[in-house]
């Protein structure tokens, strides 16, 4: 339905911009009638259409698209509304049932069962990474406790949300300050999973969510049409029925959609390439995990995927979308699920469900594992995934990235992926049944305040306000580098060299570090130019005292100073000191004055302040830039001290790497342990390695040896703070085992072959003697022995 076709005649005639706002009752009535009609249709049809008649094929979805007012979309109209899954899919699929599903209902879908991956509230500027979930899982923060509204959650995590839940709040849940009226809600994006078309684009989804084009995101991501405009730039009172802003076609452009008309037939029915069973790529858009150091071509598929099994082959659900997660004990958490049938054990070993039904082994061709030589205790005490899933245990845990935590799978000009948070796996922990399970683990990091011994996170904005430039040491450098970009005839990219690292300004306004192999001059930062991989000095070497040779360099100096003086946020005018001469601009003319100070070998650049030349990059900033070069970490201990002082109160703390930092009485940074710094962990199940790569395939000593990574590997706290003060835990301790015992037990395996041979010899001897005794007894019983004697 054309958004303007709903205008009444008088409005059309007058050309008023917002007719529906002038007639709210009319609009309300239309919406009410449409909604009632939809509900009636849905209710009358759902009981029939949800029942499977038996055909294994799915219908072709050549269907009319509906907008959020349940009006058919006519793509040829100008400015039609985006399609609404709620009404487009509703005639056959019960939206109100679906929205209670695992992916959409959030905490409403029960207690949450086994811990899953939480959302990570990441703010790189402040070094904040807080696990967030409304489920009552250990180590996560409830959004309400963090002051995060549905609006905030949608803005933070909508990029990987499937719609519904927090992204589709009821009117009573809309908080002040939110802009749902402008953006619209994010309905459940059915096409996000079920669209088999290769045009389904998660990156487009993320982009539209970032622009707060919530109601348009599904249409754009599915490739049904082209969406333009940016809701976040519109005034808060803008309404979708206001239409385009005639006064602004460049900045505050209202979102609109141009449908791809080739998808529609003459009856305005669109062809949707619907997959009953979504492709794995749809799942992996939000559920990818990969080791940080791994290259794409090195990545192996999960054995199940390699065997042609889809994610949804095991993670099944009916129309309720109550999806089977597939862990053992899930049936107890949610008796309505048939989840016992879809565990590793059920498919590979079979058994009996808690309902007493026999579960046959071998579903989907699952091989029956023999596990030869593995004592049965292992199967009682370890989850299958301990030996079969995730990376093999190493001395240190493997650092991985996940789609949702590290913003993977969003492609475009901007680099969405983030190196933080650092997620580690496998970390073996005990589940609620006391069985070992491999987990992914993340160490929270945040600024907080303590009250009654409890730590509560501070919102990043509060920290930013207090910290000022402490958290942005690169600003001092980027200010200069950005200015130098405007120097004419520079013939290259301006760079800053500190030590053996060259820093270049990137598109995000930050610094990108790379190795520097050019000429080194003292310990001072060097301003240079890079062209074709070669470095040259920003200023050529010259003698300012020689008027004949200094003309060209001085012309370059003038250009540089002009550019620097125009730098945004410059603390003063720029000056350059070359061999005892200070150059500066006075009334736009180059001024050269002789200084009595000792001449430096290299030119000195700086801001003229208090009669002196202040370095472009003050010492604390230089230290921070240098320390963080080439690192994923974003904070130094000096910065943490600085921010804690800036926050001003003694009860402020910073948490990172499993340690809580606070300023002691002397104002120095002190570390301590605190439950708030404890990591959050969630079991991993994929990817599943082939049997030949499982733990134990090489024998007991894969785990039971004094040098075993399984028992004696370690997990080190990791966070945004670059520090050696982190929590380190051995694998034994995370498992709740006694390390010396495991060491001793492992040592016994060095003698195990001899022990087995000894037992075999003893058994052979005992067996032989028993045989002899048996024969004697038999002989005596038969009377043969007595007869002979």
């Amino acid at each position: 339905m054309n958004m303007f076709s709903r205008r009444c005649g008088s409005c059309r005639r007058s050309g008023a911009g917002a007719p529906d706002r002038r007639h709210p009752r009319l609009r309300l009535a239309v919406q009410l009638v449409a909604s009632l009609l939809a509900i009636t249709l849905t209710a009358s049809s759902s009981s029939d259409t949800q029942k499977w008649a038996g055909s294994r094929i799915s219908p072709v979805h050549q269907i009319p698209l509906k907008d959020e007012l349940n009006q058919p979309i006519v793509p040829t109209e100008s400015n039609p509304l985006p399609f609404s899954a709620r009404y487009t899919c509703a005639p056959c699929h019960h939206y109100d049932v679906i929205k209670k599903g695992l992916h959409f209902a959030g905490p409403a879908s029960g207690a949450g069962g086994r811990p899953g991956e939480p959302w990570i509230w990441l703010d790189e500027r402040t070094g904040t990474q807080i696990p967030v979930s409304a489920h009552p899982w250990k180590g996560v923060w409830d959004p309400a406790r963090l002051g995060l509204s549905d609006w905030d959650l949608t803005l933070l995590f909508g990029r990987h949300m499937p719609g519904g839940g927090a992204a589709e709040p009821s009117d009573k849940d809309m908080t002040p300050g939110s802009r749902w009226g402008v953006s619209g809600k994010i309905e459940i994006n059915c096409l996000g999973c079920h669209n088999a078309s290769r045009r389904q684009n998660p990156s487009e989804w993320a982009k539209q969510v970032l622009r707060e084009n919530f109601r348009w995101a599904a249409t754009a991501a599915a490739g049904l049409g082209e969406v333009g405009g940016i809701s976040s730039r519109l005034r808060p009172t803008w309404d979708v029925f206001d239409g385009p802003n005639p006064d602004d076609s460049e900045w505050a452009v209202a979102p609109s959609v141009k449908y791809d008309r080739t998808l529609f037939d003459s009856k305005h029915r669109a062809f949707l390439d619907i997959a009953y069973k979504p492709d794995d790529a749809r799942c992996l858009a939000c559920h990818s995990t990969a080791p940080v150091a791994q290259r794409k071509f090195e990545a192996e598929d999960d054995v199940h995927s390699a065997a042609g099994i889809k994610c949804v082959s095991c993670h099944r659900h009916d129309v309720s979308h109550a999806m089977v997660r597939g862990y053992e004990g899930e049936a107890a958490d949610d008796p309505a699920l048939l989840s016992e049938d879809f565990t590793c054990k059920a498919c590979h070993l079979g058994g009996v469900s808690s309902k007493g039904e026999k579960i046959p082994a071998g579903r989907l061709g699952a091989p029956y594992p023999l596990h030869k030589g593995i004592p049965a205790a292992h199967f009682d005490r370890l989850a299958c995934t301990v030996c079969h899933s995730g990376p093999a245990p190493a001395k240190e845990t493997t650092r991985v990235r996940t789609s949702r935590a590290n913003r993977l799978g969003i492609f475009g000009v901007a680099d969405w992926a983030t190196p933080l948070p650092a997620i580690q796996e496998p970390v073996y922990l005990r589940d609620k049944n006391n069985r070992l399970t491999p987990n992914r683990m993340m160490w929270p990091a945040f600024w907080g305040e303590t009250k009654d011994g409890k730590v509560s996170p501070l919102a990043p904005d509060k920290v930013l306000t207090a910290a000022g430039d402490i958290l942005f040491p690169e600003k001092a450098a980027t200010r200069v580098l950005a200015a130098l970009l405007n120097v004419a005839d520079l013939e290259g990219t301006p760079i800053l060299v500190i030590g053996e690292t060259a820093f270049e300004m990137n598109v995000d306004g930050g610094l990108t570090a790379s190795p520097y192999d050019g000429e080194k001059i003292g310990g001072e930062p060097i301003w240079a130019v890079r062209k074709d991989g070669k470095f040259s000095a920003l200023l050529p070497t010259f003698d300012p005292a020689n008027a004949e040779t200094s003309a060209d360099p001085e012309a370059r100096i003038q250009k540089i100073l002009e550019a620097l003086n125009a730098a945004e946020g410059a603390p003063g005018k720029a000056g350059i000191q070359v061999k005892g001469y200070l150059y500066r601009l006075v009334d736009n003319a180059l001024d050269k004055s002789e200084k009595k100070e000792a001449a430096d070998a290299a030119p000195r650049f700086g801001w003229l302040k208090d009669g002196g030349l202040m370095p472009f990059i003050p010492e604390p900033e230089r230290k921070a830039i240098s320390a963080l070069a080439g690192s994923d970490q974003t904070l130094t201990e000096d910065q943490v001290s600085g921010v804690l002082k800036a926050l001003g109160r003694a009860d402020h703390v910073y948490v990172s790497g499993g340690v809580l930092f606070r300023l002691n009485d002397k104002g120095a940074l002190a570390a301590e342990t605190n439950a708030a710094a404890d990591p959050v962990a969630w079991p991993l199940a994929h990817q599943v390695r082939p049997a030949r790569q499982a733990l134990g395939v090489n024998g007991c000593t894969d785990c039971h040896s004094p040098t075993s990574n399984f028992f004696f590997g370690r997990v080190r706290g990791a966070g945004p703070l670059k520090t050696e003060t982190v929590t380190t835990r051995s694998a034994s301790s995370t498992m709740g085992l006694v390390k010396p015992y495991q060491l001793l037990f492992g040592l016994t395996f060095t003698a195990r072959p001899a022990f087995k041979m000894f037992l075999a010899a003893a058994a052979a001897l005992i067996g032989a003697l028993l045989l002899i005794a048996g024969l004697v007894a038999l002989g005596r019983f038969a009377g043969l022995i007595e007869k002979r004697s």
Partner: protein
Amino acid sequence: MLFIVITAATLLGVIFIRTRLRYAEASAAGTNGTETTAPPLTYGRWLSARVKALAARDTWKKAWKALVAWATAHYPGWTKWIFAAFGASLAYLAASGIFYAVFIPRGMSGFPLLGHMAFGGLFAAALAGLLLWRGRAYASGRGSAGSVSGSACPVFRNLSKDTLRAALFWAIAACGFVLITTALGSMLPLFAFDAQRTLIGIHRYAALGIVLGAIVFADLTFIPPPKT
């Protein structure tokens, strides 16, 4: 669970049968060899008195003396260490095995498991030694034929104590053989998941058998008959 029930039933059964036979023996001794059928109440009082006697230090001293005397008589010289090793390993294995099998659903782990393995090795060596050094004596069939007594076995009432002792010796040896082979089997990469479970089951029942046999053997051998 089945194993727990069977363990409890058989242990209680053996204790009942052995005490009942002892009671009958004591009653017969008290009535000049005339066996009487004592009413349950009287048996209860007798049993209660015996249990109380167990708490007395003197009882244990006497039992220890009887054990040492028997061991010295039957295992002369250095061979007493074979018997000592067998007895000690059997005691630890039985205590740790039954405790974990009955009371700890997750099964044995940690240092008790290490001890179980170490004593298991000792048990295997000692059992082989016992068979080598004492097997001939129990295989000769030259038991004291004259000591026919109803107190030896409630089923085969004409079975002599020595014959029963010999039978128990070989039964213990057979169970020990099963224990060793099943333990060894579960360490070898030969048996699959289900077979591993079966091996553990067999191991447990063989252990129960050896414990029951050892109890009866000890009762026959080390606990002196009532004074007449």
